[in-house]
């Protein structure tokens, strides 16, 4: 009985999470256009629906109904599967992420996490890293030099940020002593002062930087940088396949925002009178805004600069952080 | 005319004594501005721009004759002031309508005003209303006219029509105060300019001339333009395609000015024909008869296959005329060699025979003169050519010789021609009986021949015409009488010598030449001729078409040969039509056709036609590239003005086993024929140099041969009593091609003089019935003011009229019965 309920609950939660995150990802594209426009003294989409709100639906319809073009000479199965990897890995990562505090509906306690596995953080990081296969495979299979360059850049980017994000998160993990995100959240109960950001500021910064890199956002959008390599790995993609890459990217953005909020910014704990769920929404929104804000303001870096920064600056710093954390703990 | 040295601006140039300074300067590339001067015409001295300083004195370079050691300064400050002032005067009241003017872009007034950098005006005078006139082919806008008198000069000195003259302007009188302010020459030139305009010499409203349109070509401004061309295109939009006159044997250099037809139709169209008027003159046929192109949409493969089949299986002869290029003639000759076709070309056949006979006696492969020589000569005799229609350019050359060299001449033709009479007082027109040409040539031999060198038989034969007759004449004898006169005042007596005239009757012996009577010379011929021949040193004899088909053509040709050999005359034997000379040299012609005939621009069993009515369309002469052999014994190139979309003769020849990509691949092969050279078409130049040197194509090589003297005596050709009709085209018409041109399209008629109409009580436009033998024709009458006498002529240009049956034996005169049809 319990088994069945658990399965039903998990399936329902999964569907809801998928729908909401996908929807949010779509909405995020609208918000991104608007925010970028405002920052550049423009209006952004205005004509479809009030203030262009339905632009999202229009884009969706367009993407879904567009012809699925598979160019000649591409490696067909890989070309076709690459965007699926992007979207799937992003959504798989979501499985171990808790969003809100648990709550009771009709006497039934609901944990807003699809699966509270004890190595949640590791799982998320792993799943998200698998997502990096998507641009790599897409780039290699596309039979296009821009795509190939994009794929190559994806690899060097993976090699660079993965080390940093892993090492930077090591400090908090050492302090908390658990890889479960719920435990991390619970560690910070008790107001803003208990937030891990104060204890691990360097780790926070490093993780944030790594997060930008992982989501391919400016200033680390070098795998699909238009001025240099057209559209990178996605050059040959169109229609819904391209849309899957897009959804994956925004889902990743949301995941990273949630992760940062939970690990460093007090998670879904209440702040004074603000209930935890609202606080969580605010934090995630602010982080997404930050992603957009940065895109509007900053130039992007070169691949060599990315590697230089990651390997020669951030990684040593992360190591030092781990060392200091260790010393303090002992 | 010896070589001298003249210094211009410090550089020494070779020149001939008596040449004008302007000519020397132009030849050597020294710029002296001049608006009114025309090469080969007399200086007008209207513009005074060619002012130079010769040995410290002002002179007009167009008029100044070169002398040994002359030192000329082409420009100094004083002269510049004068020239600039003259330019300003020309610009006074000149309408500022360059925007719409047809001459804009090639206007000498524009060019010189810019050259002299005139951008302001210091003279003024009240303007006069100057209306524009429509003179048929020509439009005269007198408000644009700068009265340089080039049109008047060219019409008189080159063309010989003298149809234009200056007339009073009736404008404001030049204020005397200008005399003080304006430079000297400027004032004089202005004074003259302000008094005159151009008008018609006839005084009426219609232009009575041969409509050559040369006045429109020479006009430096937009005053005289072709009515048809007016306002249709700017000069700079037109592309000039160098070509040769395709209608007559002078093959003068001319340019087809082409541009797209309209915004909707991008096909090329010929807008006008232009020429280098300083060096080459065009007649009306060439100037207005340009749009005779055969326009077809695409290749007609069926017709082509039929043609090839006809060539291969049925045809045994090809009939053609001389409106073809040398290359086409060569292709036909090659086809003859390969398949044994008979080649029939009536006019070239007659001309060829005539030339062969001439060759036998004269010992020269070709006639010795050309148009340049005729222009340079000062005594010209023309026999057997209806020159105004047959070869206008030869007529221009005669006129030019008369006016420029103070020349004199004799014009023998049965039809009296007021236009030729108008050339000069010193050109005696003799309207003789048809058929006496032999006598004329014998007469020339008698008058000019070197009796000591000539064969004895000829001398004896000539002597047989002479008789000594005793004649009583009244002679005026002047006697000096001495008289004593008493001076009344002083009373002294003086001896005074007085001259008193007395009439004395005297009997003298006179040498009478019976040929005079046969030819019909006037009584005072001898004395006139003596006057004519004074100071004459260059003689030209022009022989025309009447002689080639003459019943006595063989003997006539030999007589011309004798004249060439034993007199000072240089002979010009005018080729009948465009390329008659070329065809006669290239093709081995036959006398008559066989059973199945292919016609090239001729009616036949299978007709290849550029006129657009035949079984297979061919390109017209302005759609072909190739060469003509011109009257000047020169092979001249002509180029494609308009695209032809169909098949040409070369395509048929290739199908029959010859091999050449283009027709012009045969141009160098012409070198296989005597006289022609092995030269690529693309290497042939086609221009006049600044000096007037004709750098066009190449000259035929001439040879000297051994001569024979087999001359026959005169055999009378008489027509008896009755009406004669002549075979000739009216002015400007040469063939069906000229008639196809929209400006020249007209229906053929019997062209008659006003004498003819008066005598028979007929009216212009009435009908007449002609008949001789089997031929019968009802035809309209058309009054031709430019002939006199009783002989009318029938034209060949109208392909709807079949007039040739009247002239069965080929001779241009035929006896007919005429019956006026009353309406």
């Amino acid at each position: 009985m319990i088994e069945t309920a658990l399965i039903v609950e998990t399936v329902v939660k999964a569907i809801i999470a998928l729908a909401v995150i996908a929807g949010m990802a779509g909405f995020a594209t609208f918000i991104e256009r608007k925010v970028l426009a405002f920052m550049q003294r423009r209006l952004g989409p205005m004509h479809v629906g009030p203030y262009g709100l339905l632009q999202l639906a229009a884009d969706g319809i367009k993407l879904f109904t567009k012809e699925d073009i598979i160019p000649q000479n591409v490696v067909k199965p890989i070309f076709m599967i690459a965007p699926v990897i992007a979207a799937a890995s992003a959504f798989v990562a979501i499985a171990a992420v808790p969003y809100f505090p648990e709550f009771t509906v009709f006497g039934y306690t609901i944990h807003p996490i699809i699966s509270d596995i004890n190595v949640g953080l590791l799982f998320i990081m792993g799943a998200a890293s698998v997502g990096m296969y998507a641009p790599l495979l897409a780039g290699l299979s596309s039979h296009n030099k821009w795509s190939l360059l994009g794929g190559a850049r994806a690899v060097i980017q993976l090699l660079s940020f993965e080390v940093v994000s892993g090492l930077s998160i090591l400090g908090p993990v050492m302090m908390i002593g658990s890889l479960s995100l719920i435990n991390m959240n619970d560690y910070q109960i008790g107001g803003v002062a208990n937030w891990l950001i104060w204890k691990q500021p360097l780790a926070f910064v490093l993780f944030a930087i790594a997060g930008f890199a992982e989501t391919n956002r400016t200033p680390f959008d070098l795998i699909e940088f238009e001025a240099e390599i057209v559209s990178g790995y996605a050059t040959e993609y169109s229609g819904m396949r391209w849309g899957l890459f897009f959804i994956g990217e925004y889902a990743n953005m949301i995941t990273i925002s949630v992760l940062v909020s939970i690990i460093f910014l007090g998670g879904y704990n209440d702040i004074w009178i603000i209930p935890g769920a609202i606080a969580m929404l605010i934090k995630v929104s602010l982080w997404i805004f930050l992603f957009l804000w940065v895109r509007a303001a900053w130039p992007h870096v070169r691949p060599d600069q990315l590697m230089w920064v990651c390997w020669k600056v951030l990684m040593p710093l992360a190591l030092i952080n781990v060392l200091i954390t260790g010393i303090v703990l002992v | 005319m010896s070589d001298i040295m003249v210094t211009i601006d410090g550089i020494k140039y070779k020149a001939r004594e008596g040449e004008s300074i302007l000519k020397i300067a132009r030849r050597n590339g020294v710029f002296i501005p001049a608006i009114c001067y025309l090469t080969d015409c007399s200086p007008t001295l209207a513009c005074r721009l060619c002012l130079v300083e010769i040995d410290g004195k002002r002179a007009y370079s167009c008029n100044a004759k070169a002398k040994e050691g002359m030192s000329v300064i082409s420009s100094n400050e004083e002269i510049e002031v004068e020239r600039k002032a003259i330019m300003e005067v020309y610009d006074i009241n000149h309408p500022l309508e360059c925007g719409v003017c047809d001459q804009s872009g090639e206007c000498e007034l524009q060019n010189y005003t810019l050259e002299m950098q005139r951008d302001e005006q210091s003279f003024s005078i009240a303007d006069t209303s100057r209306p524009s006139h429509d003179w048929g082919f020509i439009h005269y806008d007198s408000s644009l006219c700068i009265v340089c008198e080039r049109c008047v000069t060219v019409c008189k000195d080159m063309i010989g029509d003298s149809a234009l003259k200056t007339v009073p302007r009736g404008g404001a009188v030049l204020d005397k105060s200008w005399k003080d302010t304006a430079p000297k020459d400027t004032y004089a030139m202005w004074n003259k300019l302000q008094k005159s305009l151009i008008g018609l010499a006839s005084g009426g409203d219609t232009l009575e001339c041969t409509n050559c349109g040369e006045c429109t070509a020479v006009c430096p401004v937009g005053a005289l333009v072709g009515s048809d061309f007016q306002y249709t295109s700017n000069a700079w939009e037109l592309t000039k395609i160098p070509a040769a006159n395709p209608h007559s044997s002078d093959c003068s250099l001319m340019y087809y000015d082409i541009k797209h037809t309209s915004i909707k139709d991008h096909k090329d169209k010929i807008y006008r024909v232009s020429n280098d008027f300083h060096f080459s003159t065009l007649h009306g046929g060439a100037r207005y008869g340009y749009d005779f192109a055969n326009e077809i949409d695409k290749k007609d493969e069926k017709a082509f296959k039929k043609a090839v089949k006809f060539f291969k299986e049925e045809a045994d002869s090809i009939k053609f005329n001389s409106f073809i290029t040398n290359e086409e003639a060569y292709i036909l000759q090659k086809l003859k060699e390969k398949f044994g076709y008979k080649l029939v070309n009536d006019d070239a056949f007659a001309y060829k025979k005539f030339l062969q006979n001439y060759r036998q006696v004269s010992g020269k492969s070709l006639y010795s003169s050309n148009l340049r020589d005729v222009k340079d000569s000062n005594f010209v005799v023309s026999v057997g050519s209806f020159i105004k229609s047959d070869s206008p350019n030869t007529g221009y050359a005669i006129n030019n010789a008369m006016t420029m060299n103070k020349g004199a001449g004799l014009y023998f033709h049965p039809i009296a021609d007021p236009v030729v009479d108008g050339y000069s007082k010193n050109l005696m027109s003799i309207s003789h009986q048809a058929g006496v040409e032999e006598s004329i040539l014998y007469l020339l031999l008698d008058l000019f021949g070197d009796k000591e060198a000539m064969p004895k038989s000829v001398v004896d034969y000539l002597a047989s015409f002479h008789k000594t007759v005793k004649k009583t004449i009244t002679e005026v004898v002047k006697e000096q009488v001495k008289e004593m006169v008493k001076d009344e005042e002083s009373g002294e007596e003086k001896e005074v010598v007085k001259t008193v005239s007395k009439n004395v009757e005297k009997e003298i012996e006179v040498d009478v030449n019976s040929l005079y009577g046969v030819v019909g010379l006037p009584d005072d011929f001898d004395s006139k001729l003596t006057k004519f021949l004074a100071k004459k040193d260059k003689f030209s004899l022009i022989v025309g078409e009447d002689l080639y088909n003459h019943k006595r053509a063989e003997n006539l040709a030999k007589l011309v040969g004798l004249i060439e050999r034993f007199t000072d005359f240089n002979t010009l034997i005018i080729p009948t039509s465009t390329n008659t000379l070329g065809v006669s040299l290239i093709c081995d012609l036959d006398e008559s056709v066989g059973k199945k005939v292919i016609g090239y621009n001729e009616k036949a069993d299978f007709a290849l036609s550029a006129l657009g009515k035949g079984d297979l369309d061919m390109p017209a002469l302005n759609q072909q590239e190739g060469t003509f052999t011109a009257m000047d014994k020169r092979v001249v190139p002509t180029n494609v003005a308009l695209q032809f979309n169909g098949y040409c003769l070369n395509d048929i020849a290739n199908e029959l086993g010859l091999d050449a990509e283009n027709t012009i691949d045969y141009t160098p092969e012409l070198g296989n024929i005597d006289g022609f050279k092995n030269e690529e078409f693309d290497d042939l130049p086609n221009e006049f140099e600044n000096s007037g040197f004709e750098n066009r194509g190449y000259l035929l090589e001439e040879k000297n041969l051994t001569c024979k003297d087999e001359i026959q005596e005169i055999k009378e050709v008489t027509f008896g009593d009755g009406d004669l009709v002549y075979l000739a085209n009216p002015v400007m018409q040469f063939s069906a091609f000229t008639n196809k041109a929209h400006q020249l399209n007209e229906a053929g008629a019997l062209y008659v003089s006003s004498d003819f109409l008066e005598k028979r009580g007929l009216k212009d436009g009435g009908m007449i019935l002609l008949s001789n033998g089997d031929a019968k024709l009802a035809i309209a009458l058309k009054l031709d003011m430019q002939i006199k006498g009783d002989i009318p002529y029938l034209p060949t240009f109208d392909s709807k009229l079949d007039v040739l049956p009247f002239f069965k034996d080929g001779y241009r005169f035929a006896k007919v019965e005429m019956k006026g049809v009353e309406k």
Partner: protein
Amino acid sequence: MELRGFKNRNVSPGYIFFEGEPKPLTSWEQFKRFLSRAVKGELFVGLWIVLREMIRFDIHTLQYPMEKLKMGPRYRAIHKLLRLFDSGSERCIGCGLCEKICISNCIKMDTKVDEKSRKLVTQYSINFGRCIFCGYCAEVCPELAIVHGSSYEHASEQRASFGLKEDMLTPLDKFKANKQKEFPGFGALSKDADKFVKKTPLAY
């Protein structure tokens, strides 16, 4: 005249030359540069500027189909053929100068003599597929007949649209309604044009 001013064409007063900061030679220097850049907070200046603009909400967007930009008089769009204000007849006299000067060779005109023996422009066309809107035609036109309009919406169903005389000439009804404005732009007379006129003496 000295050529210095022409040879050194980048120099004009007010230029500030910036050589750039020296390149870091050692990795220590590179690290220092990284630090100084990071600590200086230049990146945050950028962040602040875009945020400031967002807060100010000073939007410059022109919502095109509803709102349209007013073009300046010197803007060079699709040509217009004007009429004479006095008579309403066409200004074009068919001089062909525009046809001549057109560097993309896209102007053509057909002319003929009309009944009043004046030059009549029967058709006038500009091939807008080729036209580069350089404005030479308007500048060279002695009658100010061919001018540039301000209509910049060039989408059409046919290549030949806009390019014929009837498309460019001010329609008579519009002309009669006084809708034709004198053209102040490229090729129009300058305000000081009178100064350059040289007077011609008249004998009246």
